[in-house]
């Protein structure tokens, strides 16, 4: 990797940039969780692993009922020609009980899951560790693919695909540790608890794509994570950018614009503009896969409910939500609504037996006492709050009107497809209009 230091614009790198989004979110949920170290959640008696946990085709089951599977063993494989395919692995040593259908929390459709009866909690690397000095970059990419790594910041794109597209094209690798969701603090815990490994993962990714500059975007303040900051000081080509803690989606393209001053055209990939954004959790997963030979079978999440507060947990993928709730002493029946991942963008689940997938950074429980955000919906008063907060500079209210009329031309004119589902328009709407279904209908009408 070229070590030559190219200093990016000092001002841009170290200033606290102004984020889009006119309203500050209540970050109390997060504040409580920031200081809570990860607690390992033991696997459930029955683990349920979706065969599709990313944006791309479902993996094909490689096992049958009654098979014994090892921790880290591939249970869902992909075809040679499936560029966007991602394998899935067993999170435990155990026996395959069945392959059945279950409602997928993201698609809402019935999709295949593998149910594994846990035999023991033992973990050991499934693959041999790799030394980047001894293997080619393509072999490293192959390992990342084989380990089933996807973007853990919410985008869930196959990491190997993103890295290979960007290879030798980008000058900047931006690590998104911003974690702007109000209920999630697992990334900041990862930074403070597993800093060395994470930094190594970042360097491995930069090495693969040939990026000379690494920008670490965090919302933590100077001195908040002293050990991590000391470690980072040793890294001459990693710049730290401090961002305000407001929610503004952490959307990769906007982050690039804010840091590098480049707007990414709608039909252009960020790597064509010389920059690539990866989440901090993904960097850690890359480290685990390459240096320790462990596929992506566990991740950090933040559990939050009012009575318990924020708890950071290290969970195996496929752990049912109910098991996690029992672990933190928050019985599933106490809740009226449960959301996975970010409370701004993550899906609500209908059933606590639904498992954690690679996409989920959190579990949040709401009791009957907590108000349903859209229960008292009224009509739009055209206050324009939704326009003001939209980080993509859209007009959600005008989109809603055009969608209602079925006016496709107008929907195109309003560039509805630019919407990134950040949820800010619904969050601020005084009429309590939930835009998610309106915007999805509008996008599909286009």
């Amino acid at each position, binding site marked *: 990797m070229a070590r030559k230091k190219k200093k990016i614009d000092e001002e841009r790198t170290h200033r606290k940039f102004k984020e889009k989004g006119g309203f500050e979110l209540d970050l109390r949920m997060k504040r409580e969780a920031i200081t809570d170290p990860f607690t390992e959640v033991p696997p459930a008696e029955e683990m349920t692993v979706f065969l599709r946990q990313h944006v791309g085709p479902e993996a094909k089951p490689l096992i049958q009922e009654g098979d014994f599977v090892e921790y880290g063993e591939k249970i869902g494989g992909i075809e040679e020609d499936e560029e966007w395919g991602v394998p899935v692995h067993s999170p435990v040593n155990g026996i395959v009980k069945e392959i059945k259908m279950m409602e997928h929390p993201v698609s809402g459709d019935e999709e295949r899951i593998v149910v594994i009866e846990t035999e023991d909690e033992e973990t050991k690397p499934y693959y041999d560790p790799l030394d980047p000095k001894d293997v080619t970059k393509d072999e490293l990419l192959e390992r990342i693919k084989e380990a089933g790594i996807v973007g853990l910041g919410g985008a869930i794109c196959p990491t190997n695909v993103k890295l290979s597209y960007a290879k030798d094209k980008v000058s900047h690798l931006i690590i998104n540790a911003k974690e702007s969701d109000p209920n999630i603090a697992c990334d900041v815990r990862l930074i403070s608890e597993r800093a060395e490994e994470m930094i190594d993962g970042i360097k491995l990714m930069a090495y693969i794509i040939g990026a000379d500059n690494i920008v670490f975007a965090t919302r933590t303040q100077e001195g908040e994570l002293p050990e991590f900051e000391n470690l980072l000081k040793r890294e001459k080509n990693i710049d730290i950018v401090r961002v305000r803690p407001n929610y503004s989606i952490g959307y990769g393209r906007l982050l690039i614009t804010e840091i590098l001053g480049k707007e990414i055209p709608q039909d252009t990939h960020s790597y064509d503009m010389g920059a690539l954004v990866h989440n901090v959790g993904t960097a850690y997963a890359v480290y685990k896969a390459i240096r320790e030979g462990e596929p992506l079978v566990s991740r950090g999440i933040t559990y939050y409910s009012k009575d318990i507060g924020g708890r950071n947990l290290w969970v195996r993928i496929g752990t049912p939500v109910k098991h996690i709730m029992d672990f933190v002493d928050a019985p599933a029946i106490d809740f009226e609504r449960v959301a996975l991942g970010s409370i701004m963008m993550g899906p609500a689940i209908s059933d606590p037996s639904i498992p954690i997938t690679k996409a989920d950074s959190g579990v949040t429980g709401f009791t009957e006492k907590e108000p349903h955000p859209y229960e008292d919906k009224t009509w739009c008063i*055209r206050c324009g709050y939704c326009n003001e907060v939209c980080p993509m500079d859209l007009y959600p209210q005008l989109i809603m009107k055009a969608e209602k009329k079925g006016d496709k031309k107008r929907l195109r004119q309003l560039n509805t497809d*630019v919407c990134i589902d950040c949820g800010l328009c*619904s969050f601020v709407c*005084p009429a309590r209009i939930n835009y998610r279904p309106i915007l999805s209908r509008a996008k599909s009408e286009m």
Partner: protein
Amino acid sequence: MLEEEKKARPYKVVNPPHVHIGLDKNELMLKTFLLMSIIAYASVMVMGLQALFHILVALGTVLVVYNSVTAYQRWKGVKPTYDSPGSPLVAGMIVGLAMPLESPYLVTVVVAFMTMFVFKYIQGKYLDHKYLNPVATSKSIVLLALYGVATLNVFEGALQGGMLFHPHHYQHNMMGGFADMMGFFESAFVDTIPFFGIEISATQAHFFWQPHGWIGSGMGIVVLVVGSIAVYWLRYKWRIVVSTLGTMTILAIVAALVWQNGDISTADMITMRIAFHVFSGSILFMAFFMATEPQSTPMPEFSQFLFGVGLAVLTFVFQLNGFLGGSIIALVIMNMTTPLLDRIVIKKPYGHRVKSVVD
């Protein structure tokens, strides 16, 4: 609920986001009402009990309409249009503050009734949103009706009786004779600030203590401060306020430079013009609390600026022609342009402001 039932119960599935900022329509209305109450308090101090009665009459009328319609809707098994009196109260307060002090109470009742029943309930029911500002439209209709009655000689003195605008304003030359008009205003309405005994000029009266005109204009400075707080705190469409008041200020300065008076310095003339053209209730109060009415004003940012500029220019033209309460008609005219303004100058979203690098 039985424990077993509870266990079997699936969770309520709600689309994200799963939280709300907490500021809803009712709270927005309540906060607006509270802020306007400060202006009302200041105006009553300046204008006395007559102002208070106008406000109470307007509030009472909208509440009677609101309670009657809500009771009817409940009786019919229909969900009430307004689940709290917040929005009606705001409308009532605007009616009260937008009435000239000298107007008969009956006119206030008529305007408040039309505002609430015709332009809030009926307009809201039959159109997809309120295209016209309820208070401005009601006031304009009453004004035009009185004008019609007066010009057809059906009832002489209808305009004076209605007092929605003052026919004697026609006598003033608002161009070259502006200073004389201010002199007349000073001699007729301005004296000293009670309690403090400070003697003030017509110009100062527009800023601090104006016992004449729209009730909402009693203390111009209070309207400015409270209005600015409302814009910042409740995020009103600030572009409309800025462009309306900004354009009025520019036009006032231009007018001061064009129609000079040998006895008065240019600086004094400019101050006088700004005091009159910007700090009259029909401008200042309207710019903050009527022109920003969300439903009847445009959504795109640049269109909001155009709206404000158009409103100011029309109002200024009316003012120059002696039609001093004409700002509400200007507002209704601008409301009519909103559907068009909603369609033009849509700003480009992220990703569309730069050229594609894909071949």
